[in-house]
């Protein structure tokens, strides 16, 4: 990623197969592409100019592929600053849907952290702010709701990852007014299909999916396996696209947010937001094949 410096994104190498697949945010009807961009690890590159330039190319490729939602957190080290740098280089694409989080134990210090995050991104306001890993949610959610009422925020959400604290998440989803919930979901980790996703549908909550590749472990495990014949049926040319289409094909998922350090992969991921999605029979086959091969 770094040795060769930034890899300038030259533009789409494949003809875009069909229109961009979008899903509505239930609380507003606004539509989002089913694939977004995460920033965990990949965008935490500090002040390394070459790595920052590379991240800018990742963001450029993401927007070139039709992407909108970029997600980050104060927990991700320098990721917010690196996103801000990329957005400034790209003159703040108007289609950006800026999603960030509040991650601090003290409710009183939440607003200051949000202001600091906003300054790092260089945006006037966030589209979505989420309580990170349900940390101090009792204190943060009322603050975020007040910001939304005041027009300083468009959507409010809460996150968890790796299947943690789902009981508490269910309680929050049941009792609190939420626009978004963010959870981990992928071909091998499907526990959310049982409780969280049906509850999100019932409560009209949009769902963002993190760790779609199990932090790269799934794509690495499948890297040397040839794509099965059925992949072509859904227009997939890589395992990453298969894994993303599996997630996007769940009707209760709004958007998956894969993270990548490679511009070409960012564009390739966005191609998963186009073309046919697997039906329930193929979804079962994807699970069986990935469980066998990974």
């Amino acid at each position, binding site marked *: *990623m*770094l*040795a060769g410096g930034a890899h300038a994104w030259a533009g789409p190498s494949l003809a875009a197969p069909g229109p961009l697949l979008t899903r509505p945010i239930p609380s507003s009807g606004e539509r989002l592409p089913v694939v977004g961009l995460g920033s*965990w*690890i*990949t965008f*935490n*590159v*500090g*002040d*390394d100019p070459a*790595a920052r330039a590379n991240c800018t190319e990742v963001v450029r490729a993401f927007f070139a592929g039709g992407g909108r939602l970029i997600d980050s957190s104060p*927990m*991700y*080290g*320098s990721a917010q600053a690196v996103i801000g740098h990329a957005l400034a280089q790209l003159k703040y694409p108007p289609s950006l849907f800026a999603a960030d989080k509040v991650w601090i134990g003290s409710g009183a210090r939440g607003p200051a952290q949000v202001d600091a995050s906003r300054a790092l991104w260089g945006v006037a306001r966030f589209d979505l702010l989420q309580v990170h890993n349900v*940390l101090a949610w009792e204190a943060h959610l009322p603050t975020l709701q007040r910001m939304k009422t005041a027009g300083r925020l468009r959507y409010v959400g809460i996150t968890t990852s*790796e299947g*943690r*604290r789902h009981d508490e998440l269910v309680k929050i989803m049941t009792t609190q007014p939420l626009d978004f919930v963010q959870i981990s979901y992928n071909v091998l980790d499907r526990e959310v299909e049982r409780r969280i996703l049906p509850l999100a549908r019932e409560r009209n909550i949009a769902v963002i999916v993190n760790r779609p590749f199990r*932090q790269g472990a799934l794509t690495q495990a499948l890297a040397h396996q040839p794509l099965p014949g059925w992949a072509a049926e859904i227009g997939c040319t890589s395992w990453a696209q298969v894994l993303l289409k599996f997630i996007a094909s769940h009707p209760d998922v709004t958007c998956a947010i894969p993270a990548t*350090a490679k511009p070409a992969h960012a564009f390739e991921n966005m191609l998963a937001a186009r073309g046919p999605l697997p039906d329930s029979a193929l979804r079962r086959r994807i699970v069986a094949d990935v469980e066998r091969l990974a």
Partner: protein
Amino acid sequence: MSEWWTYSLSDFLMFSTATYFRLFELQNLALWPVQVLALAAGVALFACLWLGGAQAGRAAAVVLALAWLHVAWRYFAQRYATINTGAPYFAIGFAAQSVLLFWLASRRQGARLIGPAGSLGKLALGIAFVALVGYPLLAPLGGRPWMQYELFGLAPDPTVAFTLAALLLWRAHWLLWSLPLLWGLISSATLMELDSSQAWVLLVLAVLAAGARWLAATRAHK
């Protein structure tokens, strides 16, 4: 964090292997020619350990105290902190060890080094040699660019390794061992999570040094 047992170290590692090692490259480029001074200090420190005695011991303590302080400031506070939110705490820990080493240097006989003749001395000099010469070679040996070399006084692991050698020859109090051993654990765990082939190096040196110190202390009590 009520379900803290469900977390693993990988949940807290927020950077990639490439980004981690790139820090050394960026620091080496930014600090040149400080490396010449660091190398000279390392050679002088090795000579102190070789010579032994009270005066050399005090000089070694001062050199190591300055090295720990330099790593705290230049590496942890200025470099590692850009990708790891825990780095400021590591900087405080390294600064604290620097204070302890300055305190050791201030004691007339407390920093006396035993001679390098015995098995303890040979082991200590071996560890010091790895810290001075071996560590800079780990980058190219591991298939990384040369410029990512880790040098005593600039990078934490060779600085800690050199300190372990001196602690052995000082027969230092366990208080002085605490932070170097703790860093050995933190660094090795971090590198293991990053799938680095050099993850075991500092851990092995720390186990060898602490084990030898413990054996020597046990024998002395008999």
